[in-house]
């Protein structure tokens, strides 16, 4: 299982993923955020293909915390679950995603961030 890493930015993200993602060939795995410390986030989107042997493709973009991240739900219809979870756990600001997927409404802070 090989992994291909594609660097992108938040501005060109939707165009990149839109050009890459084919419903019949690719399978969206999950979205992930890594806190790099110092208010920097590494945002990752994972795809795999239906071929064998499969290849995992990772789109990655760096961003400051608090910047609005575009939602890819218009391209990948099932992306809202992963986005809703990250809004809770990482405290990121994703377009059209609400808090309250796994945490209570009165929960303060974002548990997986280095600075709470």
């Amino acid at each position, binding site marked *: 299982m090989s992994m291909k890493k594609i660097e992108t930015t938040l501005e060109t993200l939707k165009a990149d993923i839109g050009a890459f993602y084919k419903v019949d060939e690719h399978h969206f795995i999950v979205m992930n955020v890594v806190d790099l410390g110092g208010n920097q986030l590494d945002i990752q989107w994972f795809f795999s293909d239906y071929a064998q042997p499969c290849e995992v493709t990772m789109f990655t973009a760096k961003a400051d915390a608090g910047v609005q991240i575009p939602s890819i739900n218009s391209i990948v219809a099932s992306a809202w679950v992963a986005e809703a979870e990250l809004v809770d756990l990482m405290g990121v600001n994703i377009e059209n995603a609400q808090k309250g997927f796994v945490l*209570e409404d009165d929960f303060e802070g974002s*548990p997986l961030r280095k600075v709470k």
Partner: protein
Amino acid sequence: MKLSGYRKKSPWILHYNAGSCNGCDIEILACLCPKYDVERFGLINTGNPKQSDILLITGPVTKRSRERLVEIYAQMPEPKVVIACGSCASTGGVFRPMYNIEGGVDQVIPVDVYVPGCACRPEQIIDGVVTALGILEQKTKEIEKSHILHVAPLEEDGQVNRRHMAGTIKK
């Protein structure tokens, strides 16, 4: 036979998962099935808290399920027995330091029987349930004990005021 007799011979159990990993839940399910078969004690799994006598809880209590757990406990009629199944339900287990956990079940509601193990084995669950049957019988006797009233009952709108009556019982 009186109602209390049926309760002793056939206590119904209610199962609630408060945040468990499913390990203890499938062992409870295995208990209800032919190999271990707790139905020989008259136990039936029910989904309705208002008809059940024994509450089996698995898992540590998460923040979101706490309210539901207290609600279910409050809806069960007296006498009732609570069994905490598994290490996590008893103490919080490996999940105790995590941020969305309240702790073991006894942090939220009173627990009568603790069943240890990760996951608790069906034999241990049966042992816990049989212990719970004894406690249930004891609690039933406690409730059915007659009391002497030292003050005449207060009547309001043609009905006896039960709260006033309960306050006048001397222990």
